[in-house]
């Protein structure tokens, strides 16, 4: 019992560190990546001076995240006089908490058997104690191993829009309200096609459990191709990615907060750390959405040909690895995949122009939705055919 608690506390700590760490990293990646693709250098002015020396650590501008955080914490917490006090203060938290909760169903690694992390003769401190303490217990590296993970994701990610709408309504500002109205209609339009794309994936995998989905993807298609969702369902991948970018309100779908029209959209009236929470939740949302895309379409923590015992190449070659190596490889693979997907989203954000509002609605309802429905019908037919035949 205590053993389980220790392991899950470690998982939760890892999850929080993962989300906040990578979200902070993304603020830096966004600056640097946009700078590099525009022939610029990017943010490099924040530094930490080692006390009593003249050595300034710049580290390619990595400290700008810290500088931003410090600035947001120390700024004046200005609030307009005409606003709904309760809802105004509730909105940022309502935006942030569902995003943080979402990560609990995402598997960030394979099966962990703490007792087998270290070999019997290992000289690592406490290695033998860990072996004895945990015995043969095994844990799936996921905070909540729910068998309805996809439904949880859909329902909880739907809550996030409440914070956005509340922020717009409560701050008593026309720009905020316009932003909130746009956010609401945009969310509704794109959540439909996102849901349909997810349902076709559920049909393909035959399960709602995200961990089962990842395990399904550890196989191989046609012998050599890793059986990732993107190869099984390329159209659903495109639809899901588009709707996911629309869901976290980034360019080209950033109409709720488009600076050129609406000042800052729904969080115009927020300042200091309240605004910071909106920013942070946006970046955590990028992490979460990337994690979702990775889990459902890019094979999750799977490296091609890596199984729980080691590499098995299609030619029949094998390379056995210890449990510790496999676990570390899986965790790192997941992290790298999430960072790469996130920087693809950042690349999209800095490449594409924003939709006009009617184009956005037309694109959502007249283009994405029929495509998603079409994809779902095709998937269902193929699935039925396979079931009947097999």
């Amino acid at each position: 019992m205590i053993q389980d608690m220790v392991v899950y506390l470690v998982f939760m700590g890892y999850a929080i560190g993962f989300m906040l760490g990578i979200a902070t990293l993304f603020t830096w990646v966004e600056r640097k990546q946009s700078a590099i693709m525009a022939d610029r250098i990017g943010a490099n002015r924040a530094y930490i001076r080692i006390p009593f020396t003249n050595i300034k650590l710049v580290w390619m501008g990595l400290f700008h995240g810290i500088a931003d955080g410090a600035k947001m914490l120390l700024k004046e917490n200005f609030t307009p006089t005409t606003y709904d006090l309760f809802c105004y203060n509730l909105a940022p938290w309502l935006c942030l908490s569902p995003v943080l909760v979402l990560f609990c169903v995402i598997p960030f690694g394979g099966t962990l058997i703490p007792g087998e992390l270290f070999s019997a003769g290992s000289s690592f401190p406490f290695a033998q104690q860990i072996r004895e303490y945990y015995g043969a217990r095994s844990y799936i590296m996921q905070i909540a191993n729910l068998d309805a993970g996809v439904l949880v994701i859909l329902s909880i990610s739907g809550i996030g829009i409440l914070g956005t709408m509340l922020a717009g309504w409560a701050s008593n500002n026309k720009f905020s309200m316009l932003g909130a109205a746009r956010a609401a209609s945009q969310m509704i339009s794109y959540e439909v096609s996102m849901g349909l794309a997810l349902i076709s994936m559920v049909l393909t995998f035959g399960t709602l459990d995200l961990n089962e989905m990842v395990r399904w993807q550890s196989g191989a298609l046609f012998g050599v191709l890793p059986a990732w969702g993107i190869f099984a369902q390329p159209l659903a991948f495109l639809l899901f990615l588009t709707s996911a970018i629309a869901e976290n309100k980034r360019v080209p779908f950033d109409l709720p907060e488009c600076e050129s029209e609406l000042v800052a959209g729904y969080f115009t009236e927020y300042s200091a750390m309240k605004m910071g929470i909106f920013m942070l939740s946006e970046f955590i949302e990028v992490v979460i959405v990337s994690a979702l895309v990775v889990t459902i379409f890019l094979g999750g923590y799977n490296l091609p040909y890596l199984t729980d015992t080691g590499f098995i190449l299609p030619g029949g070659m094998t390379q056995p690895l210890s449990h510790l190596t496999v676990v570390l490889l899986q965790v790192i693979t997941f992290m790298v995949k999430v960072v790469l997907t996130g920087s693809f989203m950042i690349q999209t954000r800095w490449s594409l122009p924003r939709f006009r509002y009617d184009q956005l609605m037309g694109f959502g309802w007249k283009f994405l939705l029929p495509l998603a429905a079409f994809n779902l019908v095709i998937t269902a037919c193929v699935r039925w055919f396979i079931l009947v035949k097999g």
Partner: protein
Amino acid sequence: MDLWERLYIFEVIRGLSITGGVFFGNMWKWLTFRKGALTAYYPEELRSDYSPANRGRHVLTRRANGEAQCVTCNMCATVCPAYCIEIETRDINFDDPNHPKSPERFEIDYSRCIFCGFCVEACPEDAIRMSKEVPDFPGFDRDIMWAKMDLLLNWKPMCDPAKVYPEAAQAIEEVHP
């Protein structure tokens, strides 16, 4: 828009490959220790491609004995449309009949200078010139924007076609990091 453009995805891929190409090209330059940007780190890094005729920072030329060429006639300060030159004369040295007067203080306020070059044209002694480098005065107060004598006199050319230069032997080119 034709059908191809209205399908959107292909144009998105085209746009992404343009920006991605620029990104990976520049990234490759950074990774191989070259500079993958067109911009300069100002003020650590100065542009090297200024025209030789660029009117940049002022320099004071020197006599063969190392004194400033300036005879403090005040013509530059008089002609200066921005009133940014201040000159103070040292005690007159009658041992040197060609140049009895020399400046005690010669200061230019770069917060007011408009780089018109009138001072260079007005000077009867070829004592003030403008180098092609721009003055390097980023800072937090206006005092730092005053160019004092020690800065103006630190010009050490490899050779000077107009006259014999005192420290030409151990002269160094002005180098900016």
